[in-house]
């Protein structure tokens, strides 16, 4: 969306006052405004609230309803003893192969629909689903896994989980009885412990910063530290850090195909033109969306965790 300052102020006031605004139908749900707001007023969460109040769906109703059904907790969670480090893989069982030695030391892994973080409903104008499901998810993690195991820290592999349990939960007044730790913080610590075994990858990398990271910009420094430790040169490019572009998959869900094509091409061309060899991902959803297109442009798509594994043991990920 493009505004001049006056229009921007006017539209923001409309949103604040519950009036109609073109923002409510044109928002790409990239979360950037949550990062930009210097006052912590949660402008994006308010947009989502207004969308739901007014019945303004960014995505067609059948797709919205089906996604809500698809990601429903199955209620199949059972108690399991865990030991630290406990790695929360959200609803990505297909990625548990990434959690292996030497980077992850004797991890316990939790995964499944009953621990799905539910932050994705921000893209679908469904704060109500977050309010309904997130408290139960937090309770599941605490009661079925952490509490009785005497563990009070949870390492979030998925950026969205960390954002959900910190930034989002706080904004929605949902209590979180455990301490979420971002996987990058854990990885950075492990790289220090394994310093002597690191074989620097000596490659240029482009980093795909996901939308959820806009909610938790405070963790960004871990990314730079990790790259430094593994000998990766993060290329300077236009669409990085505060200027990051979303992967575009949500835009496709919103039926905005041409916009999604345009930003994906712009993003990947930017990586390529900056001389990147790897396209490094934080978010599994971004990776699923962009990996093939990145590979077609000659970039090696890889999750940051797996890139660190290469630096430690030279092995490509399984799966």
């Amino acid at each position, binding site marked *: 969306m493009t505004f001049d300052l006056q229009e921007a102020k006017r539209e923001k006031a409309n949103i604040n006052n519950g009036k109609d605004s073109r923002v409510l139908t044109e928002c790409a749900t990239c979360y950037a405004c949550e990062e930009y707001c210097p006052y912590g007023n949660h402008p994006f969460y308010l947009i989502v609230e207004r969308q739901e109040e007014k019945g303004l769906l960014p995505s067609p109703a059948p797709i919205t309803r089906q996604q809500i059904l698809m990601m*429903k907790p199955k209620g199949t969670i059972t108690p399991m003893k865990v030991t630290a480090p406990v790695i929360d893989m959200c609803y990505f069982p297909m990625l548990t192969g990434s959690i292996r030695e030497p980077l992850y030391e004797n991890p316990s892994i939790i995964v499944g629909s009953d621990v799905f973080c539910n932050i994705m409903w921000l893209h679908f104008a469904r704060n109500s689903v977050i309010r309904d499901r997130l408290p139960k998810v937090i309770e599941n993690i605490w009661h079925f896994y952490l509490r009785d195991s005497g563990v009070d820290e949870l390492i979030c592999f998925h950026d969205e989980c960390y954002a959900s349990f910190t930034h989002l939960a706080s904004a929605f007044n949902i209590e979180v009885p455990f301490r979420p730790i971002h996987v990058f913080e854990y990885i950075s610590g492990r790289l220090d412990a394994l310093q002597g075994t690191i074989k620097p990858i000596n490659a240029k990398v482009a980093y795909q910063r996901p939308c959820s990271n806009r909610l938790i910009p405070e963790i960004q420094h871990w990314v730079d530290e990790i790259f430094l430790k593994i000998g990766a040169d993060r290329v300077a490019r236009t669409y990085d850090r505060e200027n990051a572009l979303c992967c575009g*998959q949500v835009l496709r*869900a919103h039926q905005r195909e041409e916009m999604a094509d345009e930003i994906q091409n712009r993003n990947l061309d930017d990586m390529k033109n900056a001389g990147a060899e790897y396209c490094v991902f934080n978010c599994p959803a971004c990776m699923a969306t962009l990996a093939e297109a990145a590979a077609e442009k000659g970039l090696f798509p890889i999750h940051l965790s797996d890139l660190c594994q290469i630096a430690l043991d030279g092995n490509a990920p399984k799966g």
Partner: protein
Amino acid sequence: MDNIYEVLSEIVGPEFVSDSPEEKYIYSMDPGTMPACEPDIVVMPGSTEEVQKIVQTANAHRVPVVPMGAGLVLSGLTRALKGGIVLDMKRMNRILEINKLSRYALVEAGTSQGMLQAHLKKHFPDLKHSAPDAPPAATVAGNVCIHGSGHMSHAGGFHSDMLNGLEVVLPTGEVVRIGSCATSAYWFARAPLPDLSGLFLGWAGTTGVITKLAIKLYPNYPYNDVGVFVCEDASIVPDILYQITGTQVAEDVTTWMTPKPDWAAGFMHCNVNYGAKTKQELIWKRNLIRSAVESYIDDKTGGFLPLPSMMKQRFLEVPARQLSLFADVRKGGGFEYVGAIMPVEIFPEAYDLGLDIADKLAVSYSMGCRIIGVNHSMMFFYAYAFNRADPADIARAQGALEETNKRVLDMGGVPWKAEAPAQQEIIRKMDPNTFDMMHRVRSILDPNGIMNPGNWEDN
């Protein structure tokens, strides 16, 4: 029959004839619900000449002959309802000619879908045929002569529409050629001669044995994609299909509805498959298809699923291997379906019918439809899974199939590749003069009534 056994052994060689209990058991039924009917002999010819001799022998002795491809029709059409000889055609599986410029393939009748597909991929990667979603072991001829459909049917119609010519052994033993091949070395069209192919399409093998056929081939594009359009209101589906097919850029338009997994119940998913020579062309086609249903997207009543490319692979696979998995839904190795050929406008009633029967008869189901031509008709399928080790479960599926067939007919559709009970329902509904004409045609072609008897007879 012993005498015939000896004669058949001399024709094809003793290793390709069997009256052993094992073959009689296996060839007595297909994977559907129809009960076993054992043949007396199973024979596997290797050439048209052998087929001719077999048919002449059968005719002389008035022994029934049942032609069979892979036996995957699922409605029991290759069972020997009155005993006799099952003719397993699969030894005749040579690919005789691929004519690139005229885009046709000439194959023997036992050639499998998979082998033709593999042959084209290796030797003529710019060409493909319209493959059904039947397993790759299914034969090209079997599918054509039951009016099958597949992955090019939106562009090209029924697979019988894609037929260029036939070589057939008549029940009386003559070998005839139908189409341009009757006068020419080329098998390029059925026109402009009087089209005799209709005497052998949809007749369940009751009018002769197809030994060779030529089918149309289509461009095989290097770039392929699929859009899955989702909605919840069956009443808008006919127009959605009308709009999408009106762009005429897709190759296959197939809608699927299933109660499992839970998130799929109540939703209609319309797969639109298309291909292109370049990526730009692919994106152009995508946008064109999308614009055809823009009004539904704008009012949020439908939209395309945001599938990353790794999740699209199952919708781009030809044939779709996962469809066989439906047979294991009841952990019983069985499914059978009513494929109803219907006008697209009755999609809502057809859909409601499926829900009603599944609910009333408590059967595991899956539904969908494949568009034939430019919305000219649809093959709407009602698939019911069953456990073949449980007679009650088989009976339940049979009940659902029978009820579905009846109600399809009432609705104005026609069951495709109808099993024996469904044939009776169709005959009851059919114009009597039409059925009489069928009978007269069969009498002329097959005066001794040897070809797959028990089918299309008024009981």
